[in-house]
């Protein structure tokens, strides 16, 4: 007998299954090919791209916290051109869908990147709007609904692929921001990005991260992420890619019940290279145990 149906559609693109690699935690995919058959992953959101190559922040860039990690990579990446010419063709040998996670300092930069991605094999563009917007005095785009509207609208006008807007949790009301993205034409929402946090080395009295602060991810933030996904699911009509601390199939089920059409695995990839396949397998097992033959029977299935 066949297993349950796992394929989901996001803005007209079909993913074989709802498991997505969260941006920044799975490189450009190829790094993991010793461990993972990339054909088995629904989609891969690649490391955050910028217009020019970026060195990123000085080390240390990571610190372990209780059931979480703080990172301050600072968007180290080889630049979007290198991605298009070098990494994308390698990744495109696999069935997995490719999400280009783009990061701009200005709206113009986002648009330039979207234009460069035209006529490439990229399946989705993911707008990461958590990074500080230099021209707005360092406040992150993603915390201001107006800015979210403007950047989404602008990129939507010049991008060919379906547009995913990735929300930051460092806001007062996630619904407001999600609503702004949908209004501006986003085809899907992904959330959450990391929470801002820090750690101090009490022997040196210095911050552990050279960048002082970092982004908190992992199981520690799962309850917050789940709440926000649920909130956004009640607000928008576009599909949601939920993430934040997903380590197991059971975690994935929670996010799907809360309203996510797909789920992304981030920190778990740092813990185990096969994390996504494990999550997928456990998700299938859960569905079989509960006689669920289509993932759509779970999406948004929370009972209040």
């Amino acid at each position, binding site marked *: 007998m066949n297993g349950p149906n796992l394929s989901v559609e996001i803005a007209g693109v079909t993913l074989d299954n709802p498991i997505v690699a969260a941006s*920044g935690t799975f490189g450009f995919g190829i790094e*993991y090919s010793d461990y993972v058959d990339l054909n088995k992953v629904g989609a891969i959101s690649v490391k955050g791209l910028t217009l020019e190559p970026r*060195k990123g922040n000085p*080390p240390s860039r*990571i610190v372990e916290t209780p059931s979480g990690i703080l990172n301050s990579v600072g968007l*180290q990446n080889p630049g979007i051109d290198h991605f298009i010419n070098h990494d994308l063709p390698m990744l495109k040998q696999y069935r997995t869908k490719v999400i280009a996670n783009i990061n701009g300092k200005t709206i113009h930069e986002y648009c330039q990147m979207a234009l460069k991605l035209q006529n490439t094999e990229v399946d989705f563009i993911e707008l990461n709007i958590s990074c500080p917007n230099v021209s707005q005095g360092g406040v992150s785009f993603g915390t201001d609904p107006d800015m979210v509207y403007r950047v989404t609208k602008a990129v939507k006008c010049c991008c060919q692929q379906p547009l995913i807007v990735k929300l930051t949790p460092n806001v007062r009301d996630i619904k407001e921001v999600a609503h702004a993205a949908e209004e501006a034409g986003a085809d899907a929402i992904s959330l959450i990005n990391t929470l801002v946090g820090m750690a101090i080395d009490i022997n040196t009295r210095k911050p552990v991260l050279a960048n002082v602060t970092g982004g908190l991810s992992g199981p520690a933030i799962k309850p917050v992420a789940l709440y926000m996904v649920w909130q956004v699911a009640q607000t928008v009509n576009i599909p949601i890619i939920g993430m934040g601390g997903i380590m197991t199939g059971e975690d994935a089920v929670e996010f799907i019940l809360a309203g996510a059409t797909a789920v992304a695995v981030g920190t778990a990839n740092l813990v185990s290279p096969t994390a996504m396949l494990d999550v997928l397998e456990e998700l299938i097992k859960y569905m079989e145990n509960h006689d669920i033959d289509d993932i759509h029977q779970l999406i948004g299935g929370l009972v209040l």
Partner: protein
Amino acid sequence: MKKRIISPIIQNIKIAHGTYKMTLFAPYIASNVTPGQFVHIKIPRDSSLLLRRPISVNGVDKNNGTIDLVYRVVGKGTSLLSKLKPNELDLDLLGPLGNGYKVEENIKSLWLVGGGCGVAPLKLAAQKWSNLDITAFLGFKNKSEAYQIDDFKNLCSQVFISTDDGSLGEKGFITHILIKHISELRPKLILGCGPISMLKILKQISERYDVPCQISLEERMGCGMGGCFVCSCAIGIKDSWDYKKVCTDGPVFDSREVIFDEWP
């Protein structure tokens, strides 16, 4: 090829103050590891500790399919490891990871310079290249922290020891002893591992005397596979360097390419 390996613990003993040696059954790694490569260990039981811990391979026994790791207890993860008993549970490892030391065919003599737990991976180098003429320079804080000196003596032509307090070997930094011999003996290749302060001096010495030198770097790691970009170190030449990945580009680099100024 990197693999994920579930490894029974064969032995786990204290070999010096705060320092433990763990022997694991891991035939694949025993057969495929190069000196300087490491395994990435999932800390068992306490699921609040998410990240794996990178530990270099210290020795192998291909016949028995075992590897040795030598580690210092510095925090929660290593403390937990130090309490594990043989056969109590199996460790989840990734490995062998990283690029190890490279010794070209034409090299006939080798100098190893290690400090503290940096001595550990050099023992595998001594083991692998024991047919060469090896001189080892091993520095420790004091006598109680020294380990595996007899092993080095068996594998090397000559072994120099120093401790910070003179409780074993000469008193002072091992790089002081190195410098005393380097001007006359001019080795063909130095392999170094140890604290960053030592590596900085090693880089200077090797440049001054124009001796090729490979050093192994440490940085906090995530994935260990090049996927998360957290294990960065500045590599290149002054004013033209990039952050490379310790996990896949390293941990061993040509010392001339390591830009320590960019280290915090």
